[in-house]
């Protein structure tokens, strides 16, 4: 039974917002291919609109002066949630601070993100040594011994903290990224660890900073710079020295589970 008064009331209520009252906001069409309405080309930026208005942006009024203490903010959902997900990161690494023997290698890390900004990481890297031409010059000109620690592999446990987020505009895309700090302890295995010196694994600490760019819900691109510190006595030296290996690491991370859902509104 039609309750005309209720319908009238409904219509009046909806008429409070004029666009709603247009046909009760009802789409009576069966057309999934509505043609676009003729439109003025819209301004593509605030600057262009200002140009259209004669180069002037409306001056601040008294109320705007008063309103300046008000805050406007954009509160947007993170593009990529990390909490309670595991991240597997195969990476390529290269040392930056060794002019004679460049350490080149790769590794794998498994990171578990307890919350969005904090993760625990288990990592392993393996290195090879690449000798550059400066070695030959140093030996020829200086008769130098070039004592250096030949790092073989390193492993450890790190803590990752992601305090900073950002975004950048790249052509017509906006890419969101975050910046993380990493620090932890582990071991380093060098040529003195095994035969003939048999020093064993060297305790190591590392500290670094990196960035992560999410490419998809299940994949991200990361790079980080990490300083590995460990004590070693290259060749026959009696006294250990702190070895500093600064590496640039580049990796592609794969996330498990591959998707995430938002819990907050």
């Amino acid at each position, binding site marked *: 039974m039609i309750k005309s008064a209720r319908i009238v009331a409904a219509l009046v209520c909806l008429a409070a917002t004029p666009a709603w009252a247009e046909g009760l906001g009802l789409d009576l069409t069966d057309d999934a291919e509505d043609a*676009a309405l003729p439109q003025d080309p819209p301004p593509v930026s605030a600057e262009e609109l200002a140009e259209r208005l004669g180069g002037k942006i409306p001056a601040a009024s008294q109320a705007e002066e008063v309103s300046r203490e008000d805050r406007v903010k954009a509160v947007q959902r993170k593009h990529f949630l990390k909490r309670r997900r595991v991240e597997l990161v195969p990476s390529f690494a290269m040392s930056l601070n060794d002019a004679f023997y460049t350490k080149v290698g790769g590794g794998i890390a498994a990171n578990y993100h307890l919350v969005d900004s904090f993760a625990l990481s288990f990592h392993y890297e393996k290195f090879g040594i690449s000798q550059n031409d400066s070695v030959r010059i140093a030996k020829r000109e200086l008769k130098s011994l070039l004592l250096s620690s030949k790092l073989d592999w390193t492993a450890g446990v790190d803590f990752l903290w992601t305090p900073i987020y950002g975004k950048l505009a790249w052509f017509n895309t906006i890419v969101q990224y975050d910046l993380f700090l990493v620090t932890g302890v582990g071991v380093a295995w060098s040529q003195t660890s095994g035969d003939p010196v048999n020093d064993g694994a060297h305790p190591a600490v590392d500290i670094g900073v990196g960035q992560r760019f999410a490419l998809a819900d299940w994949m991200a691109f990361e790079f980080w710079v990490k300083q590995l510190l460990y004590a070693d006595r290259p060749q026959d030296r009696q006294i250990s020295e702190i070895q500093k290996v600064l590496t640039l690491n580049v990796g592609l991370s794969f996330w498990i589970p591959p998707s995430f859902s938002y819990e907050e509104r």
Partner: protein
Amino acid sequence: MKTWILALMAAAMVAGGPARALAQFSFDGLDLSDEEEAPKSPPKKLKPPPKKAPAKKQAPPQRRKAAPQADKAKQPPPAAKQAPAPKPQPVLTFEGLDVEGKTSDRQKLDAATRLFREGSFETAALGFHEILQDPGSVEQYPQAEYLLGKSLYRLGMYHSSLSVFKRILEKGETHPYFATSLEWLFFIAHKATNQTVVLDEIARYAGASFPEKYRDEYRYLLAKYNFVRGKALLDAGEAEPAQKDAHFADAGKSFDEARRLLAMVPPESRFYPKARYLDGLTLYVNGKFTPSLEAFKDVVRTLNPRRARYVDPKLREQAFMQLARIHFEHAQNRHASFYYDRIARGSDQWLQSLYEASWAHFRMGEYEQALGNMITLQSPFFRDEYFPESLVLQAVIYYENCRYPEANEIVDDFRARYYPLYVELEKILARPYSTPADYYGVLADLQKEEKGGETNRMLQRILKLALSDKELRHLNDSILELEGELDGMAARRDIFRFSGLAKALGEDLGAQRTELQRKAGFYAKRKLEKERKELASLNYRALAIKAEIGTREKDVLEASLSEGRRVSPIENYKYSTAVDDEHVYWPYEGEYWRDELGTYQYTLTKGCKAR
């Protein structure tokens, strides 16, 4: 001897005749498929009524067809701007056919059918038309008429094709092609820009037995027809109080019939989501809000992109909007806000959802979100969008928080922007119009005006708003499509252009166009009047807010005078910049980032509301 020779010949004819006949009707090499949809010309501009010269010619929708053998030699001439000098009626000729044992009208039909098979639809159509004009070919009329309809369909002349199939259907089920003509109605409905042109025909033959595969679509369309009828009866009841009861009773029957038909659409049908949506609307109009909610929720569930067989994001968003509006109407603002949030950023409902959600946030006292939505709506990118009431809402929020200078300024801004628009609209509607179609022409004129300044920008927004009326827009689309067909005929070969068929089709299309323009004029008038009324109401409300502000400011002044010191109702608000773990916070500093549109929140740092 003669007997057995005759028998041999007869046997040869029996064996060879049907074989030849079959061979004649072989569709090898004939392109009957429709893999590529005819691109629909987007409606660029409104067309003025017939008394004015058309501003633009629209190319007819082009259909890909098999390379016609016969038409290769001659290219269609360019459309002439003036009526060419009359030429003698061209004569159709056909290649030599095996006409043994056939009457001449049958021969003509066979010849035209062969042309149809070969893809020479123009010539075939002419052939069929000639047969229909020949009183001696009465026996061939049914088939010729049917094939004429198909030829016009293949030429992309859907409205003309519809006229032919209408004539077949009017002859009733005794017509041998009645059933298959019903099927072609659906094909035309899917090709035409505006499906409602076919709706009336489908409704007229409601009692007929529709092909099984179209049953669901037919039920849905018929239900839609009944729904529209019911709505129109309700409007008529409101307009004519003396007939109100009768109209309302008829409306009820229409709605009941609509619901009955919709209930027959099974869940596995691709029309099920649309049927449920329409059911939701019908229930709503009948005041059954809870079942209406369930119907819309059903649409949302059915069209869930993760598991739906059929995907229709637009319909799903419309369902979200209806759910939000029903909840809002019943003061369930949090539920309303929840559904508004489901609208995808950048979709065609997005701005509208932002605006409507502002009201929900306002009711819940969430001024941050309400004002934040306004920032998006009033950003430079959407200045041409029409949301005058958003300024009124902004003023109300500031007023509620005792921020009187800001509220005053917004009211002044509103009046500066929209009062001149109201005046212009009054002027337009005050003009003397002789026919309803003239209202349709008004909107076309608005587009042509090249006055600069803020007023013209406003009028362009009004035009855009008017065209947002779906009924008007679809009528406009149909008119443009009709114009396209008429222009397309002028671009065809002379043999077609100057034929009796073209003349007859032209007259028919002209009559259809006139009728559509009349309807469009009615909707245009209704829409413009409605917008004027809305603006008048908003202007009044703006003045009321200003009056209230004046009263409050007077009270504050009086309080200051009586206490001998400045009294201010405003205090500092406490606020926080903390956000939860799933969100990021970006202070707005005047720089617009595209992905931040729609996520703004405005924090009032001062006010008088207790928090």
